[in-house]
């Protein structure tokens, strides 16, 4: 097991759970898995970029930049929503999409910072060793 890894027992129909059930595995390792999976697709990254430029877009606005069926875009948005990267708000008949940067921030704070720190301390160690050798 990797450091920090925990064993999660998932219900068998895990893959069919809707986002209302996200909470059952929302803490810990599963969260990161969903985020990484959601980000591992150029269309979904494109959708996030569009929301980064301007938040609150509707499905029609989001699909306008893509050569894809409405259903295809909806599917991608659902994956982003399941990963917590997109939050939707209904206003009247329109559903608006907002970029939630928190899951990416959590990965940044948990992983990137850790490795950046290690690199810096490795450099400091190297400097110390080189200077001692002189």
């Amino acid at each position: 097991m990797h450091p920090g890894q925990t064993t999660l027992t998932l219900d068998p129909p895990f893959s069919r759970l809707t986002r209302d059930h996200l909470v059952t595995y929302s803490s810990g390792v599963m969260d990161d898995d969903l985020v990484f999976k959601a980000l591992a697709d150029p269309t979904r990254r494109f959708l996030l970029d569009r929301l980064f430029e301007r938040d609150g877009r509707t499905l029609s606005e989001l699909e306008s930049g893509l050569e894809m069926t409405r259903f295809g875009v909806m599917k991608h948005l659902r994956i982003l929503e399941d990963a917590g990267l997109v939050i939707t708000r209904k206003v009247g008949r329109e559903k608006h999409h907002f970029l939630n940067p928190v899951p990416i921030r959590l990965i940044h704070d948990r992983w990137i910072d850790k490795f950046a720190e290690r690199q810096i301390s490795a450099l400091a160690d190297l400097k110390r060793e080189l200077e001692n050798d002189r």
Partner: protein
Amino acid sequence: MTTLMTTQIYRVYIKTTPQAIWDAITMPEWTARYGYTGYVEYDLHPGGTYRVRPTEGFRAAAEAMGNSIPDVIIDGEVLEADPPHKLVTTFRMLMDPTMAAEPVTRITQEIRETGKGVCSLTLTHELEGAPVLASIVGGSLEDEGAGGGHAWILSELKTLLETGKTFAE
């Protein structure tokens, strides 16, 4: 429509109770420990005042960078308080004259139990007409030393509540 375009929404899942999240948002001994730090003061009923004063450390850091900061860095009014589930306030940042001159914005914080000991905290910041504040709380000025905004605050709040420690501790 324009309102929505200037609204930012953040959500974090935290393994804790609604009351613990509520306390961490509304009690100065908690707010001094995460994010930008600062001592909050809430008069938790509609029309009540909401203020944030800088911690000694925050003030010292700002002064070291040559910035003097006011005694009250955020002020607002409580619009709705339903502990431990919903808190709506207005929000005005007084850290610099540009932001202080922008229109008053509005923050809604909602805490929901989602089962298995996990709660969601959703923060909605309506930022109509306040582009400078929007870029600060959106984290886009982080490289200039303005902190990572709401996402950074919520990430550290989660760490604090789940581990008992902040990033620095």
